[in-house]
């Protein structure tokens, strides 16, 4: 009951719409207008700040704070940003760190999720609880000791240091989500694999993983966004203009002496694009993923 397979969701929603046809007659035109108005207002609030940054980035820097939607549209902020700042270096750093975190995070959380979902082994309960409690750990209690460890291992200012740290943030949540996904895949598939002579790893790798693609997409999305947008560790561990990630680099544009809105908005747009692409790729699976995994986990 609590692990309704993800595949039944379309079926339920189809039945939903059948019911809604009947209900639709009961909704007065005024109610429809009200609903649309609510959604439009909410959408505008959701989209506007992002849109405004995009529009500002296309204005000459001198006009950054004007209220016009378009003013002498130009790409000078972008060329300026790429030629005169270390933006590309930061971008590369972030891409490397987020990419590695995603790759390792997906592999680790998928194998953990599978083990927790399929096998009963000593230490399983403890592990599940640890994964849940880990979510509560505040940055503040860990950051100083992790900083010291990284300093001791010479990993400060190294991408590897941040990757390892980000794994501790993304893996616990992702492992729970993957467990929820694997729970929805019938055990008979595992058994058939074993009948055909596959090892447990073979079953996992060749049969189950391909079936869990939506889950993997959600996990990858979460890991990537976590690493791409993290601020606290990145600000503390990475110093020197060449080592900064985007989160650190962007802070250089805004300080107490004022803000350079021109390059900053351009940078924001360029930062948002990869995240939005990953998001578009994953969002199809997001609703199913959230309900199958995290929520019912």
């Amino acid at each position, binding site marked *: 009951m609590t692990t309704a397979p993800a595949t039944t969701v379309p079926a339920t929603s189809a039945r939903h719409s059948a019911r809604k046809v009947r209900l639709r007659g009961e909704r007065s035109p005024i109610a429809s207008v009200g609903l649309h108005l609510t959604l439009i207002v909410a959408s505008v609030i959701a989209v506007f700040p992002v849109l405004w940054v995009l529009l500002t980035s296309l204005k000459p820097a001198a006009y950054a704070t004007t209220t016009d939607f378009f003013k002498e549209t130009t790409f000078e902020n972008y060329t300026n940003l790429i030629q005169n700042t270390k933006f590309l270096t930061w971008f590369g750093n972030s891409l490397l760190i987020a990419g590695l975190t995603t790759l390792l995070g997906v592999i680790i959380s998928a194998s953990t999720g599978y083990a927790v979902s399929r096998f009963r082994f000593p230490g399983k309960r403890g592990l599940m609880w640890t994964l849940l409690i880990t979510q509560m750990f*505040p940055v503040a209690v860990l950051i100083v000791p992790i900083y010291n460890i990284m300093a001791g291992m010479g990993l400060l200012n190294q991408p590897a240091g941040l990757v390892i740290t980000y794994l501790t943030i993304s893996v616990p949540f992702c492992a729970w989500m993957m467990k929820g996904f694997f729970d929805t895949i019938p*055990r008979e598939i595992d058994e058939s694999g074993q009948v055909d002579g596959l090892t447990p790893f073979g079953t996992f790798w060749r049969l189950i993983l391909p079936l869990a693609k939506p889950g993997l997409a959600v996990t990858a999305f979460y890991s990537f966004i976590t690493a791409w947008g993290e601020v606290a560790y990145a600000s503390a561990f990475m110093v020197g203009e060449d080592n900064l990630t985007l989160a650190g680099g962007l802070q250089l544009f805004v300080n107490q002496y004022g*803000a350079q809105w021109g390059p900053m908005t351009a940078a*924001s747009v360029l930062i948002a694009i990869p995240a*939005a692409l990953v998001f578009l790729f994953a969002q199809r699976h997001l609703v199913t993923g959230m309900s199958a995994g995290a929520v019912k986990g």
Partner: protein
Amino acid sequence: MAVHTSQSVAKAAGDDVARGRSRGTGNPPPPSRLRRALSTHWYAWTMVAPVVVVIGVIIGYPLVRGIYLSMTDANERNVERSIGVNHSPATYKFVGLDNYTEALTGNQFLGTLGWTLVWTVSCVAITFSLGMALANILNRRIAGRSAYRMALILPWAIPGFVSVFAWRFLYNEDRGLLNKILSGGGIDGIPWLNDPTWAKFAVIAVNVWLGVPFMMVALLGGLQSIPSEQYEAAEMDGATAWQRFRHITLPGLRPVSTTVILLSTIWTFNMFPVIYLLTRGGPGEATQILVTQAYKFSFEISPRDFAQSSTWGVLILVLLMIFAAVYRRVLRTQGDDW
């Protein structure tokens, strides 16, 4: 060895009952028991090993170390450090629970805690209500549903720090768009981030903006898993829309909403980027929540106060664990199997 493996496979494939039995009967003397356990569970342990190692090294050890630091007077001047070729050993000493008494009797911790609670409760309550409302609307048959959904999810797709900067841009007192619109309407500009009360309002608004998409998506998933037969039956019995919402939707969403409320409470309580990037805790310390203040102790003041930072960190952890335990108990007394 190959035989061994396939045996374990057969065991793994069996259902829980079978395995439970095999565990019950298998109680031989210790050494062979360990070997048996190893041969039965080696693949499961192999699969979870990376997580255990990473968590152990990067969370377990730092946690223990953090708790230890919170009972010392460690700061930048007395920890082990190297300046050039000079290496000075650690000279900080153990002070027991002094840091805790100091934190719990002083005004700073309790004051910050008070605002952190206001911040968490209002953020979670507003985010949840808005997410619930939007999820319910989107769950209806309505024209342009997927377009609305894409637009509403957008704040989630943009990295948090980018959105926070975007809001900072809008909030800017002299040149921000919000104040320009207000002055267009003949209203004086509002010091969004420079007045303690407005700054509190501003950070909550931004956090709600960031948090609604997650709530909405999670609750939408929950809504779609409520069987429509229940609604049909209720309609037959002549239940009003409000009654259907109250007696079918809300109970049906319970598993989802309990989890998202717990998660988002924890996340909001520890929400570092919004406060740090929007106001740095200012003006003064007006919007400083526990996490940002603890970060400030160890990275922004001079000398860096590692001991106090760790103390606050441990207290945050304790508070959250108490919250999770109480939350779970309340749910359990209400008959939830969670």
